[in-house]
């Protein structure tokens, strides 16, 4: 039914009144982990207009000062700054906590924030090991608070439309999915250890992980390739694409996982009193066996070339053709029948970093009323985050693992099962 001009004008006139009558609630919002990505999320919180930024936390005083300056410039607020998240939670009683620390800190900070009564927006992957992620999920359920995980590809427009294309049978029956993230690179030389820079609480940075010597290669920003703090490319990139697979399939988990990889190009990992290298694999293949299809992951950090058109993303191989879902290159369907035309949709990302955090934050805010679960809820994100972590267990043990996704146990392999957890450095206690 088309609106008459009169009705349209009346509707238009009413809109400002409705907005005025419902002033936005402002959530007391805090950020733990105030570096590059943390500020990206905080920008969305500020721009959405429903947060007052009350506190920032970082173990690096320089990062903290830069973040406080950033907030002041954006919103005029002067948030309190903390070097220890426990003190922040205790004193500020935030209603929303954003967590953008390295992965090894996700579980302890998320669980503490939930127990302090806050809703949580935490970066992906949920945990650094499987049972940390499970503990986060359990605590979220007990607390009744909302947890959104930073899997922004769940809501990114070209991902959503690609998923629709797949589910409507656009690519036909899918038998295999191939996930990948390729970059150039070469040999890695050890970097010298150094005293931590002034203002960096290196002990707290390492936290539950082993206290290793400081090296500029780790901080700022280099931790993703150090297995004490992250899980390499599979943990960082792989989780996004494995999440896309779980969005598409009706299955909840794979039954068997095998991974191989290493550092033939970067060279052996080094860690001694003088110097160190990263220790994540420079290439890796992981196979995820589902009931009705097989999914593979592969990454390389060398051999950048033009031989392969797409460097990042997922190929869904179907009877009607191949769908590539990418990053900045959007999605493209390559039909099996050469007479049919390719179908393409551009990405719609926020730059400079090519994400869709604005949509993910809006979805988070909408879910705080309790009417709907957030799109990257802790339940969904837990299932997706477990997959790269299981891939890393197979890589470490050098054999395939049989996964019971209902009980969340590895069958018949005590050594692999032990890697569902990790030892924590005292006084930190493994959650759950």
């Amino acid at each position: 039914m088309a609106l008459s001009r009169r009705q349209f004008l009346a509707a238009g006139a009413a809109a400002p009144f409705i907005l005025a009558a419902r002033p936005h609630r402002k959530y007391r919002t805090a950020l733990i982990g105030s570096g590059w990505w943390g500020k990206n999320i905080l920008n969305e919180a500020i721009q959405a207009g429903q947060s007052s930024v009350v506190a920032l936390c970082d173990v690096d005083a320089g990062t903290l000062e830069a973040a406080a300056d950033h907030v002041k410039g954006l919103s005029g607020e002067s948030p309190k700054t903390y070097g220890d998240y426990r003190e922040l939670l205790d004193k500020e009683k935030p209603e929303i906590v954003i967590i953008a620390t390295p992965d090894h800190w996700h579980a302890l900070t998320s669980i503490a924030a939930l127990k302090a009564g806050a809703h949580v927006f935490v970066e992906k992957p949920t945990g650094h090991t499987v049972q940390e992620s499970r503990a986060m999920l359990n605590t979220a359920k007990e607390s009744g608070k909302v947890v959104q995980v930073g899997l922004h590809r769940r809501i990114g427009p070209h991902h959503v439309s690609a998923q629709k294309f797949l589910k409507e049978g656009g690519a036909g029956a899918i038998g295999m999915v191939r996930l990948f993230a390729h970059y150039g690179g070469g040999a890695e030389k050890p970097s010298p250890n150094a005293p931590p820079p002034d203002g960096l609480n290196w002990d707290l940075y390492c936290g539950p992980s082993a206290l290793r010597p400081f090296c500029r290669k780790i901080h700022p920003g280099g931790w993703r390739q150090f297995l004490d703090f992250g899980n390499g490319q599979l943990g960082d990139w792989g989780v996004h694409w494995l999440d896309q697979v779980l969005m598409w399939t009706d299955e909840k988990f794979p039954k068997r996982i095998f991974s191989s990889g290493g550092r033939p190009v970067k060279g052996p990992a080094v860690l001694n009193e003088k110097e160190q290298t990263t220790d994540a694999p420079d290439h890796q293949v992981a196979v995820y066996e589902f009931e009705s299809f097989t999914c593979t992951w592969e990454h390389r950090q060398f051999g950048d070339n033009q031989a392969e058109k797409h460097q990042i993303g997922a190929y869904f191989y179907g009877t009607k053709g191949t769908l590539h879902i990418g990053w900045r290159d959007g999605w493209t369907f390559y039909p099996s029948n050469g007479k049919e035309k390719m179908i393409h949709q551009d990405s719609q990302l926020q730059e400079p970093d090519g994400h869709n955090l604005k949509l993910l934050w809006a979805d988070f805010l909408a879910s705080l009323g309790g009417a709907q679960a957030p799109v990257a809820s802790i339940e969904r994100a837990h299932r997706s985050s477990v997959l790269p972590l299981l891939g890393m267990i197979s890589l470490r043990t050098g054999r395939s693992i049989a996964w019971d996704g209902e009980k969340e146990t590895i069958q018949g392999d005590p050594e692999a099962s032990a890697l569902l957890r990790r030892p924590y450095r005292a006084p930190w206690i493994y959650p759950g």
Partner: protein
Amino acid sequence: MSPQHRFWTGAALALLLGGSSLSADDWPRWRGPAQNGISAESVWGDAWPAGGPKILWKAEVGVGFSSFAVAAGRVYTIGNASDHDTVFCLDAENGKVLWYHPYPAELGDKFFEGGPTSTPTVDGDRVYAIGRAGDLFCFQASSGKVLWSKQLSKDFGIPVPGWGFGGSPLALGTQLLLNAGEAGLALDKTDGHLLWKSAAAESGYTTPLLLPGDDGLVLFSSGKAYLAVDPRTGKEAWRVKWVTNYGVNAADPIVRDGQMFLSTGYGKGAALFAIGAGEPRVVWQSRVLRTQINPAVQVGGFLYGIDGDAASEPGALQKAQLKCVEFATGVEKWTFPLADVGSVSAADGKLLVLSGDGELLIGPASPEGFAPTSRAKVLRGRCWSVPVLSGGRLFCRNAEGQVLSIDVKKP
């Protein structure tokens, strides 16, 4: 006028003229004779032939982002290969290596290709060069003989900033000034002995800038501020707090008519300050221009600079924008898309833009808009080093260390 005052005025004058042995088109240091990124030469302004501009010669100098100093027919730059930095002196005519000096240096390739990031400085028959770890050399320009060398952290206890020392040395009077420590470092330029040093905090990445005026102040940057210092004493005159992520106060300030323009990346933005008597005062501040690595240039009443941060993966591109912003007001006049973050300099009323992916664009500097009259892809890979115009040649390089001498003489 006191004798001391006369000395300093004389030193400033010599600085502006670029020293006695220089010809008018020499570019003896980072940002050029007037430390403003602007060349007094004329430059090609028409479309290039189909094959692109004429390449006069090519050279290989190793990985890095050092730009060029050009004086007395010699071109200086630095590159890294096989765990060594090498300072090169090339013949401006043909690119032949006249002399070189290697010293052990880490590549340091976290988040970028690595290698040295500072540009050598020519002062008479001397050349000064500094590596990222603080290895400082004074060479005889004609022979390449090392006259003296220092190691800033070992010899003077200066902390190395996160990305290594990136500012170039400034020769001023009898001093060699370095952006090292919280508010600079002064050495005697004849033998490198310490004159004064500042607090042991991480420096920024700018080059010491002599401020106009009788005070003879020099502007340094730390990781958290821009600081004006009296180089005779090392005493701080004033500071402007300026906090940029990871301490990357890298883009050089632009100072004129009692005003100081600052701009840095990571979303920080830009501001214009009135400087002079008393504490600096903000004239305007906004996020209109965020120059992360290379500074803007100011032509007429307008700033031309590149807004945006580079990608943190070597080889990856990150779209950026060339912007024109009114100096006095901070009002944006236009934007022009670039394939990747690069650099901009100016000559002859034209902008010389090298996009981060190696496309060279030349066109009139105008607040009406940017319409490049000549453009060509000249280099592959990442290009952050500012091209230098001298003697009708434009010297360009990329991250891997390929150097081009391009003929840009006005026909």
